[in-house]
């Protein structure tokens, strides 16, 4: 496998508050990789730095052979880095379909409608509800819509922040199965997740982040047996 994303010594934060303190991480092309860690570890800030919402202080980000360090959100998107933000962040007042089409906002190719059909085939409930306000959907359906909106951007790498937050276990199972399908279709996935069990079920490789750095990484099968991980993050 080849490396799709290579992050070295990344530092960023908000104003005077630095959150990432030299984060190193690689994501292999075609993989599902997860980042786990406690509240405030810097997981969300890391994704926001990758997608250009948070300014990079120093370090480097290489993606698919190109330098994308500190680029603006539209350039990150153009490179193929698509961020499904925490809390879904669907656009209120717009229908499910209009939300999905906003995912394709920068695209001018003629594959938009076939991608829309793919999203509807993956999540049939979205097709049924395509004409209703996206924020009236249930939590699980909103997450489907947010992921679908991400797919509409034609990602090479899909960043998903907190897949399972606030969702029923059944909805999480449904979304996990969909992510496996989406990944099988050739989209690399980087998942940030507080629920370590869910994350380890999905991902082959995991990075443990604490205090803005990667403190441990490896195959999820190995990490799941690591007593320190079991105690700190799985409550076992």
């Amino acid at each position, binding site marked *: 496998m080849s490396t799709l994303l290579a992050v070295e010594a990344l530092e960023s934060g908000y104003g005077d508050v630095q959150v990432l303190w030299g984060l190193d991480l690689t994501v292999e092309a075609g993989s599902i990789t997860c980042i786990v860690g406690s509240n405030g570890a810097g997981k969300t800030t890391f994704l926001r730095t990758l997608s*250009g*919402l948070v300014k990079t202080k120093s370090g480097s980000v290489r993606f698919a052979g190109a330098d994308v360090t500190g680029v603006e959100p539209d350039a990150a998107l153009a490179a193929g880095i698509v961020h499904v933000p925490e809390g879904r962040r669907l656009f209120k*007042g717009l229908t499910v379909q209009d939300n999905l*089409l906003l995912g394709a906002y*920068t695209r001018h190719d003629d594959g938009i409608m076939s991608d829309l059909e793919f999203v509807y085939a993956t999540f049939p409930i979205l097709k049924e509800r395509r004409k209703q306000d996206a924020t009236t959907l249930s939590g699980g359906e909103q997450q489907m819509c947010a992921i679908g909106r991400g797919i509409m*951007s034609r990602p090479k790498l899909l960043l998903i922040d907190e897949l399972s937050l606030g969702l029923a276990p059944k909805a999480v199972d449904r979304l996990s199965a969909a992510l496996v399908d989406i990944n099988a279709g050739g989209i690399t996935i980087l998942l940030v997740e507080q629920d370590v069990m869910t994350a380890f079920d999905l991902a082959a490789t995991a990075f443990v982040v604490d205090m803005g750095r990667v403190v441990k990484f490896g195959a999820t099968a190995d990490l799941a047996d690591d007593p320190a991980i079991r105690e700190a993050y799985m409550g076992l």
Partner: protein
Amino acid sequence: MDVQTLLNGLVLGGLYACIAVGFSLVWGVLNIINMLHGSFIILGAYLAFFAHAAFGAHPFLSLPFIAAALFGLGYVIQRGVINRVVSSPVLITLVLTFGLDMILYNAMVLGFSATPRRLALDMGRIDILGATLPLDRIAAMALAVALTAMLFQVLRGSRIGRAIVAVRMDRDAAALMGVRVPQIYAITFGIGACMAGAAGSLMSVVFPFSPAMTGLFLGKAFIVCVIGGLGSVPGALVGGLALGLIESMAGALIGPQEAVLAGFVVMLALLIFKPTGLLGKAGYE
């Protein structure tokens, strides 16, 4: 209420809707109370007047060019100046647009003088159910409502419209869709100025105007937004028609001197009892 008062009110109301809709859009999307709006309207009226005086251009024909020119002016002002402080508290942008308005207002006094002007067209008049209405007013009102409907369609059905709504709802999430937020801000402010310019060129055939009236029209835009509810095109339309009817009824009942006052009284009452306005809700449609 007799038919004449009702029709006068509706004609006035259609123009008020067109005056207010751009103001409402800028307020709703950018959270900027644009003090320049009244001057944009008067500038549009002057451009129509001079296009008519110099080239004999009919104001309904020069309107698209005036609207485009005002769009450009608005775009440049937002892109070059207001975008620098757009995320600041509303008072900062208010003071900035107030200052820009003083420049534009005084430039118009210098350039056009304070003498009231009027573009007299006289397209004839028609009788409707015993009431008499000049055709130029009816045409101006119809165009104003058509322009308002067009803006509604653009916001609802176009790619740019979806981006504007997305930016209003969630700036960060819109940026994640690849929307260039500063550019959408500039386009939105440009559309606001464009609607003001179009409204101004329509007003020029209905009312006499001078630079001293910028505050009057700004006030009307404000009242319409409060009555109809901020943040939607239908709100501006309802608010505009309501203000038109209120003023024409007040004019008939208590005299034209007090008609302007009536609008402000209704606005204050709504602020006390229903501050969201008649159609007010979160979300721009």
